[in-house]
């Protein structure tokens, strides 16, 4: 029996609050609603800058692929999956409010060609596991 989640269960979640979702043979990556809220304090105008990588860059799992600045903090963006960056969502860099509106679809950040087809099993969480992880962090 699986527990009911409020977050999409069609993807995997990483400890630093990024998600990864299969997209054909590739994987798209973004940040979770929890990360957006923590950064923006619930105010989408608080997100001010985002740097994403050049396509072609090779990433290891957990490696920083970009940085995001809210009014009060600069934070790293870490890749949940190892692979080569093949595209970035340039709209994000100019319109950070997209992240508040739709972090799960329109707010994807990078598309990578994963090093392994079995990427989903490595140190990643299901939606239910991620929600337990968030709950545990409160204590």
């Amino acid at each position: 029996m699986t527990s009911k989640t409020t977050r999409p269960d069609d993807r995997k979640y990483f400890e630093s609050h990024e998600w990864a979702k299969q997209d054909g043979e590739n994987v798209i990556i973004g940040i979770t609603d929890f990360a957006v809220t923590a950064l923006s304090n619930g105010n989408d105008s608080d997100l001010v800058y985002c740097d994403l990588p050049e396509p072609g860059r090779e990433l290891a799992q957990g490696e920083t692929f970009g940085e995001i600045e809210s009014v009060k903090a600069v934070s790293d963006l870490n890749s949940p999956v190892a692979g080569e960056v093949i595209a970035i969502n340039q709209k994000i860099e100019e319109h950070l409010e997209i992240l508040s509106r739709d972090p799960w679809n329109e707010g994807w950040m990078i598309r990578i060609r994963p090093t392994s087809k079995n990427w989903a099993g490595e140190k990643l969480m299901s939606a239910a596991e991620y929600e337990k992880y968030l709950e545990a962090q409160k204590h």
Partner: protein
Amino acid sequence: MELWRLITTFEASPEFNMGLDQALLETPESPPTLRFYTWSPDTLSLGYFQRFADVPRAAEAGAQVRRITGGGAIHHVDELTFSLACPVDHPLYQGPIGASYERVHRTIAVALARFGVKADLRGERALVSDRADTGMCFHHSTPLDLAWDERKGVGSAQRRKDGRVLHHGSIKLRNSPLEGDIATLERYGAPAPEEFAPVLLEAFKSELAIRTRPAAPEIDEREIATVVGAGYRAEKFLRRR
């Protein structure tokens, strides 16, 4: 009560100041650390994402660096600079980022009150010190900024990386020509950094219920500071945007 390390490095070079803060952020085994410092020469620090061209008077400072924290430019002169470094799950930094600012800024307000300054969070009001087109941190305020005399008087910013947080900030003791009409302690006895630091330390100890032990940076932290420090003044980094 939790034991924090206290590092005081007055009149240090811009390279060392920025390099040591990076070392405190990136050394996982570093204990929770409170650091007080000042700069020699006077230095203008750009925010991590700021465009160099957006700070028209940058070249007037004695030196220039780019910080690893965000926000606007600060002219580090006649101020006490502080940094806090600890794991991001430390009670001081748990929860929303805004809440951590509130805790730290309320602590600074306790120290300011010892000098007769009535400082509080800006909230939704506008400040006299808000100005466009200078690129300076003290001319751009947000609701969580600490203000008195209807002007911004403390600038602070965080960097979060690999489960740790670096929070640094500036408390203005006197006016600087590059920042002009902002809130300072000039009218409140104009304490020197050496006089303000112990009062701020007492506020951190009482408000956060911590003890501190004075210490020098560890050898590995000094090594990191030396290796990475020069990069903060390098043209490539300084003008990366």
